[in-house]
């Protein structure tokens, strides 16, 4: 069985959205969960967070940033084409029950992953402040979508090109200093950003949930490649997470593990299996 791409939308030069026909996954998906896909016979199994889902249509949306071989090859696929494997939903849904006031922080692509959480919280009647950060104005994504599901939306850029200069942590600090009391902060983005948010919120004693996205193969607890050290214990992001208490994460170990296949990723991009015209370079 293959999985058809129903809709594709380029969000910025590096990020695109794909809505994929996967009725069984759509039926069960919840915010915080992820899927694993494999483009074709030669493909790697790569996890992507569920960005949205439509149970009636039977579709699941993922938002992808072009960072390596699989994401680049995926970006070359168009509406109507198919992906060979698409399995999920995997991982535990984010625990949103009982949260009344939440700050949702998204960094870059993390914004896409934070969107379903904000949407669900909003629908549950919680007060939602969203802060998202991008390198510059041209990279801003999901502005309208987030506006619709938040009480306050703050978009900040590293270079100030959208009129608000600084990091997400600067904006969050302003809100916390102004006396905003959050039941939880949900931070999703690059590891360094999530670490910075956690370092900040620790001082204010605000519970902070982060979403880890390490390399994995099966997504069901089998390979152990996705191990994360949380509170001194080894956890598997695929089954114990991907959400964890950000104040308990060993960030240094997590940052190091990200480098495990870096050199090979470069090789794959330069001389790997070429999907354009479905020929094989290697």
């Amino acid at each position, binding site marked *: 069985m293959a999985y058809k791409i129903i809709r594709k939308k380029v969000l910025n030069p590096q990020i695109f959205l794909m809505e994929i026909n996967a009725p069984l996954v759509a039926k069960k998906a919840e915010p915080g969960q992820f899927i694993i896909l494999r483009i074709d016979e030669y493909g790697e199994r790569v996890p992507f967070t569920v960005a949205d889902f439509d149970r009636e249509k039977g579709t699941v949306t993922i938002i992808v940033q072009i960072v390596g071989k699989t994401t680049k090859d995926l970006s070359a696929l168009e509406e109507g084409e198919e992906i060979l494997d698409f399995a999920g939903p995997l991982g535990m849904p984010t625990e949103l029950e009982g949260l009344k006031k939440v700050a949702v922080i998204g960094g870059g692509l993390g914004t896409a992953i934070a969107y379903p959480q904000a949407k669900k919280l909003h629908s549950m009647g919680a007060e939602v402040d969203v802060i998202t950060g991008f390198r510059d104005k041209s990279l801003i994504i999901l502005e309208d979508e987030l506006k619709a599901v938040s009480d306050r939306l703050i978009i900040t850029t590293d270079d100030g090109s959208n009129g608000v200069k600084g990091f997400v942590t600067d904006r969050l600090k302003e809100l916390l200093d102004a006396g905003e009391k959050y039941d939880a902060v949900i931070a999703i983005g690059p590891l360094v950003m999530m670490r910075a948010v956690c370092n900040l919120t620790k001082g204010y004693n605000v519970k902070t949930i982060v979403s880890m996205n390490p390399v994995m193969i099966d997504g069901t607890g089998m390979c152990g490649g996705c191990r994360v050290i949380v509170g001194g214990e080894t956890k598997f992001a695929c089954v114990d997470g991907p959400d964890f208490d950000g104040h308990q994460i060993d960030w*240094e170990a997590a940052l190091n593990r990200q480098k495990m296949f870096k050199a090979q990723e470069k090789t794959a991009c330069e001389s790997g299996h070429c999907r354009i015209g479905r020929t094989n370079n290697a």
Partner: protein
Amino acid sequence: MPNMSLKKNPMPEQRPDERNKNFLEVTTGYTEETAIDEAKRCLNCKHKPCMQGCPVSVKIPEFIAKIAEGDFEGAYQKIKETNALPAVCGRVCPQETQCESKCVRGIKGESVGIGRLERFAADWHMSHVKDEITVPEKNGKKVAVVGSGPAGLTAAGDLAKRGYDVTVYEAFHVAGGVLMYGIPEFRLPKNIVQNEIDNLKKLGVKIETDVIIGKTIMVDELVEDMGFDAVFLGTGAGLPSFMGLSGESLNGVYSANEFLTRINLMKGYKFPEYDTPVVVGKNVAVFGGGNVAMDAARCAKRMGAENVYIIYRRGREELPARAEEVMHAEEEGVIFKLLTNPTRLLGDDEGWLKEIEVIDMELGEPDESGRRRPVPKAGSEHILPMDTVIVAIGQTPNPLIKKTTKGLDTNRKGCIIADEKGKTSRDGIYAGGDAVTGAATVILAMGAGKTAAEAIDEYLNN
């Protein structure tokens, strides 16, 4: 007149210094002449001791007699009566502790090469006979099989032959379970497994890949919403154990599951033709002494590692791996550091593994398993430079099904509790294989799948 040679006909195989550089099958199999010669070593004992050593009671003297007569297809059909996967079992069964351990010829000299003959018959069939499969008449009842490893495939085949409408659910993108992701190509070529799966499909078995039972579909939904009359859980023991040593999350440290899955299932040995990479350094240590450890070590050698060590805390006699795997690993240049145990893993500032610290062990009093307990020798710690570590100390069942299925009892180790027929604490739900026993062998899982299929048949007819 039986062939009274004290030795088995040797198995033709690739030269060790050649095969440790490729992933082609190590052993190439008996020729027809050799098979007949070996078959003639069987004395056709009246009390058939060999059969008692076989978990699925293959009619061993009968199939061997057919080979001796030159009726190779007849031999295959004889095996097939009780064993769904002869080509697999002939290659991966631990014959030396099963059928061959009971062989009368083994008392004085070597036992008959039962495994080699089983493989010969299966391979001969595959290359000479096109399977003509007739789809059995359906009895109108539906059974779901969860997991497509040896237990699930056997249960599915047996149930389909009895007329059940069988659907197999597999979490990965291909069926086969450990036969696909765990056991390497050079020991069990994947086309053999695929052939068995294709035959199941011809029998009418439906195989749904990319479906994780306990996530995509719950066990209760199978029964309540999807109309399955019974469920067989053959979910294996897929959760890797780590040792809890400091440094286990350093880069360069794999679970055997991850390492082998990258290589076997994802074809990482063909990177970058295939997208999935495997990083293997110059010095590789594999922790553990079972078949999985041997597979990992031999894969590492083939991936270009210069020095590959098996680090095992007990002695040679205690190695749980098949004798043939240990021998092959040694021939291929794997270095055995026995009575040695790792104590910690040391990395550089960037988080990459650089060294391991190990300690010498000695054997003390026997423990509950009857094996002598290894005890560390105080002060014998020493450092070995190491780039890659593969932890192969065992697997436990995945908790996913247990967590999402109410009323399904499991034991302290997370294994599903089932009686000798595979019946669990939930009516209509059966289980077998590693999911019940913890990590064991292919043939035991197949035996459990077979027994459970019989029990399900009985249950659905009452």
